[in-house]
């Protein structure tokens, strides 16, 4: 339990050290740097340290591992991060300079507040997609290539959630239309489908067909897929020479047991159509769990697969199982991966969104800490936006409170979202509430948690409810408490299961259910240490 032994030092590690988390395992550095950092970071960090830290310091190891794994998979980023860290450049003057020219922001003004919130909302698509130029270019080149040669192709895009896949595809689509106009080609027809909204997976073919065939009578005797196949393999008249761009979002929802639909979709791009002038493009973006596919009409499919965050077995697994098969079918899609955003990218995107506003709402280092923390945890842009918004709300409440309380008091010079607001928001988002939860449990449930901690102290990883009950009864007896009955006991175990503290396996018989602990024993010890009653029990 060393992590808990020094609560005073571990706090900074988590609050300020969020960036160090991303350094993928440079653990030794953390201890040294964290002290320094603490000095540098302003009072805000200290405030948060006192408030937030006890909680953070005990967060489960699991939580912190996954981001690290993530970072490792992108070695380039971690190198940069290390450099950054060693420089200890916390305030980034370069970026903030350009912002400071702008007028002052007044958070009391509803209009302005609204504008900021809107700018930060997920649904607001920025006019330009920054930090994804490279991927966008590759996708666009691919589309362009297909359109120029009038051949089909497929592309598979994969990437973690919140890394701008759908957004980029939308831009590519517009770009392609623009380009086609300039190049004097037919504008490609576009079908955008979100596969989650299909009621069954084969519906995608009727969607494609519906778009493709708008004028033609439906041929009742063939399934949409058969019709499509015929279309693409038979000679067509000239008029149909348009390409079709099919963008299928969350493509993994098309996976059926035999993966037939997905294969057929990709196979569409390989149908022999050179004589057919008609070109569609199918472009598929497959997220790991999901895909987007853009298919280029007749023969060309674009397919993007994206890699999923570690932990989703399904995702990588999918690409592995799925791509070789396609290769054997001679339609291996080009794969484009959208990496999780790095800290710099998140920062840039946030600034890009805010730069359009005529005033400064965020301190630059507040944005930076947000970017660092989010990139370390998941690199999910949606999350970064949510954190910013909640920091904004914290400020809003603060401002309103100060107005209510002392209307005549001296108004603080500059009301912007500062470090401390951001840190409060981050801790709200990323903190693990386990310790709080344990401390607020009813007493008998605490006893169960305590007995579970004892039970799993050894090498044994799980026990049945009956065994746990025995331990529980022991503790109750030793402290002269009337124990709850066995049915009540298993009820309480279910509640603890819901709260994510215990894990109950399914079993027919209540008594035979296996119990295992889902939180770190150290967390439990720390949480219960405060309560005198448990001090003896835990020894």
């Amino acid at each position, binding site marked *: 339990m060393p992590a808990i032994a020094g609560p005073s030092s571990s706090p900074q590690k988590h609050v300020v050290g969020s960036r160090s988390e991303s350094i993928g395992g440079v653990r030794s550095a953390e201890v040294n740097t964290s002290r320094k950092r603490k000095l540098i970071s302003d009072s805000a960090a200290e405030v948060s340290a006192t408030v937030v830290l006890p909680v953070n310091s005990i967060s489960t190891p699991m939580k912190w591992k996954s981001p690290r794994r993530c970072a490792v998979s992108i070695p380039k980023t971690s190198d940069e991060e290390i450099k950054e860290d060693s420089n200890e450049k916390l305030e980034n003057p370069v970026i903030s300079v350009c912002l400071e020219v702008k007028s002052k922001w007044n958070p009391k003004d509803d209009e302005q507040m609204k504008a900021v919130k809107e700018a930060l909302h997920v649904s607001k698509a920025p006019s330009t997609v920054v930090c994804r130029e490279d991927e966008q270019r590759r996708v666009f080149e691919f589309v362009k290539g297909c359109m120029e040669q009038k051949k089909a192709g497929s592309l598979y895009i994969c990437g973690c*959630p919140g890394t701008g896949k759908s957004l980029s595809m939308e831009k590519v689509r517009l770009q392609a239309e623009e380009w086609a106009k300039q190049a004097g080609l037919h504008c490609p027809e576009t079908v955008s489908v979100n596969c989650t909204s299909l*009621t069954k997976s084969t519906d995608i073919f009727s969607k494609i067909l519906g778009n493709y065939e708008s004028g033609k009578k439906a041929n009742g005797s063939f399934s949409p897929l058969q019709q499509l196949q015929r279309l693409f393999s038979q000679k067509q008249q000239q008029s149909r020479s348009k390409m079709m761009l099919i963008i299928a979002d969350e493509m993994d929802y098309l996976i059926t047991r035999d993966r037939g639909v997905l294969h057929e979709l990709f196979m569409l791009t390989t149908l022999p159509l050179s004589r057919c002038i008609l070109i569609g493009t199918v472009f598929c973006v497959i997220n790991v769990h999901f895909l987007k596919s853009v298919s280029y009409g007749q023969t060309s499919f674009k397919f993007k697969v994206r890699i999923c965050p570690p932990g989703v077995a399904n995702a990588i697994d999918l690409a592995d199982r799925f791509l070789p098969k396609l290769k054997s079918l001679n339609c291996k899609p080009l794969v484009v991966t959208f990496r999780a955003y790095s800290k710099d990218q998140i920062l840039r995107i946030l600034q890009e969104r805010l730069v359009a506003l005529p005033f400064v709402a965020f301190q630059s280092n507040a944005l930076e800490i947000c970017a660092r923390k989010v990139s370390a945890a*998941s690199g999910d842009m949606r999350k970064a936006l949510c954190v910013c918004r909640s920091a904004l709300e914290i400020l809003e409440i603060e401002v309103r409170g100060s107005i209510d309380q002392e209307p005549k008091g001296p108004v603080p010079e500059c009301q912007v979202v500062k470090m401390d607001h951001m840190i409060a928001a981050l801790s709200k988002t990323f903190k693990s509430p386990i310790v709080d*939860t344990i401390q607020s449990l009813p007493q008998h*449930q605490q006893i169960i948690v305590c007995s579970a901690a004892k039970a799993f102290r050894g090498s044994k990883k799980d026990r049945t409810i009956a065994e746990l009950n025995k331990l529980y009864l022991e503790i109750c007896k030793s402290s002269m408490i009337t124990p709850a009955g*066995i049915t009540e006991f298993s009820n309480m175990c279910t509640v603890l299961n*819901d709260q*994510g503290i215990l894990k109950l396996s399914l079993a027919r018989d209540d008594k035979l259910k296996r119990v295992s602990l889902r939180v770190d024993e150290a967390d439990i010890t720390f949480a219960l240490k405060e309560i005198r009653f448990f001090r003896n029990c835990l020894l």
Partner: protein
Amino acid sequence: MASSLSSKAKTFKSPTKTPTKMYRKSYLSPSSTSLTPPQTPETLTPLRRSSRHVSRKINLGNDPIDLPGKESVEEINLIRKPRKRTNDIVVAEKSKKKKIDPEVSFSPVSPIRSETKKTKKKKRVYYNKVEFDETEFEIGDDVYVKRTEDANPDEEEEEDPEIEDCQICFKSHTNTIMIECDDCLGGFHLNCLKPPLKEVPEGDWICQFCEVKKSGQTLVVVPKPPEGKKLARTMKEKLLSSDLWAARIEKLWKEVDDGVYWIRARWYMIPEETVLGRQRHNLKRELYLTNDFADIEMECVLRHCFVKCPKEFSKASNDGDDVFLCEYEYDVHWGSFKRVAELADGDEDSDQEWNGRKEEEIDYSDEEIEFDDEESVRGVSKSKRGGANSRKGRFFGLEKVGMKRIPEHVRCHKQSELEKAKATLLLATRPKSLPCRSKEMEEITAFIKGSISDDQCLGRCMYIHGVPGTGKTISVLSVMKNLKAEVEAGSVSPYCFVEINGLKLASPENIYSVIYEGLSGHRVGWKKALQSLNERFAEGKKIGKENEKPCILLIDELDVLVTRNQSVLYNILDWPTKPNSKLVVLGIANTMDLPEKLLPRISSRMGIQRLCFGPYNHRQLQEIISTRLEGINAFEKTAIEFASRKVAAISGDARRALEICRRAAEVADYRLKKSNISAKSQLVIMADVEVAIQEMFQAPHIQVMKSVSKLSRIFLTAMVHELYKTGMAETSFDRVATTVSSICLTNGEAFPGWDILLKIGCDLGECRIVLCEPGEKHRLQKLQLNFPSDDVAFALKDNKDLPWLANYL
């Protein structure tokens, strides 16, 4: 005897009842005699029906002379002196009408009179098709039915206009094309419009006046009709203002004895007459088909109208003025709606069913009405012939059944404090206020207000979690209630609120239908609903006419919606991230880590707004209970504290605390009544709470073990004894039996024999007190106690029959 009664009797079963009135009337005005629709139980609900009956009777009274034709009717009407109506109830019934008309009203009796009746034998000839009044009526046709007696006589004098007047020039030409406004249903000549229209435009068209009204201006200059010209109302207008009825012909027959043609009508209702009133989604021309039948005379039928199902209705844009839409059936008993399956074929069965039920009920109502009518005849002046009928068709609740309502205050004795306490502690009782959750409620309010207050509503999502019984749902609901009050006060812009409980859905996908129904009022299959919702939220198309309002979606038990590929949750949580969705999602579940269990792309869309409802601590529970009991002096303070501490230590579930207190109140009530001492302190004391807690927390297995048979007790004792001796949880029947026999021997009990013992073991196994293998293993059968031996020992210890058992425990 009432004529309603008579007519009913005539129609249905008891010929003996056809009465005197029939005679009287028959020579006076045969036509009106039979007009009276029979009293049916359905009359209870719709006001319209009741007024119909009333008017009918007036008609009877006022038209004593046989009227050969319309013209003569008018004359008679003109010379008739106004008569006063003594029956004020009738007047009250008519409060709907603008004018209470003291004049004698008459019904425009259709000129062709059926032959006079001859015999009173009840014989009927049924037809499929009847030509009446030069029009053919067939079974299944829809017709207008008049209810005119109380209508304005001036208006009645006019011929019902076949063609409605233009709203601008107030003339009706037959040769110009008229267009109908989809909002006010007014008719306009194409060339009267400014600018004039050449042809009827495609799609919906709204007249200039309605457009102005819609744009928010209150001052609308509507052209006034020229002086002296009366606005003639078409039948459609009368129907929609409930001065006429529409009905479907279900049966047609002629009474052989008097030659009067009858129809059995199945009524249509306009939306205003349903329990819900007119809803936003009701179209102007929408009608509901009811399961309310009546037998009426052919004379009341005015002419055909056309009620169509939505599909046909959409095609029927040129079919004239008498086209209506009927999409739902309305059950007048239950006030419920259901979609008309297929108007043509599907509903045969249900008709049968309803018919059947009706017949049964008719008997019943017959008698009651008889009684009622007699009363009314007595009460109202006899001189009025119409008076006998005057109360027909009115709904008097219990009175109708011939009973007098017992006044509330007589019936209920004064509630004692304990009873009041029991009532307020019921879980179903909504508390007046919610203590201890103000912080959470504030947060929810801030969240919702923050989301919907701006005109540009930004979609968001909040996840609320907490253990059961911590007030999650009720907090959200009370927040919504407060918000609703604010909407009415105008400080918050209006929104629509859809509440869904995941556990009440037949399957997770059904949530789409429920949401869609909540937004539009139409029930469709989930696939269709998903498509429409996608259009609405992702592409920003509107559902129905209006829907600019933000939508708040409350999903209780969110975790039930987690399907294998989680697409339902994905869709629901993806919508708020779309630009024009205006959707705010509040999800409630017990599990704290639900978002972490979901696919990353879903938790990414869920956002980071979380709200935790922790278990209550004992102080909070105490406050909750005492707020509920405010003003009721029934509990000792310590008793409440004891209950709340006990619950807080185990689960912190407010429901359970309330249950314990309620049970304690019951126990106390029982105790006080039994002791029969009018104690000054009728308070619930600690001991009562203790008893309640024992009942609640003590597992049922102890109760079972306490009440098992004597031999079973010995058997269990032997098992416990065996367990103590060997220390092994599992034992075999062989060994238990040996122990039993030795125990019995020592204590002078007769050993029951192995077979019986085996049976006892299996019985105990059935109720899961012991776990045992099937009985065929006999001696080798393995047995194990299902509960801790302490529990068993505790249950068996204090036994009067077998005190010696304690020695072995």
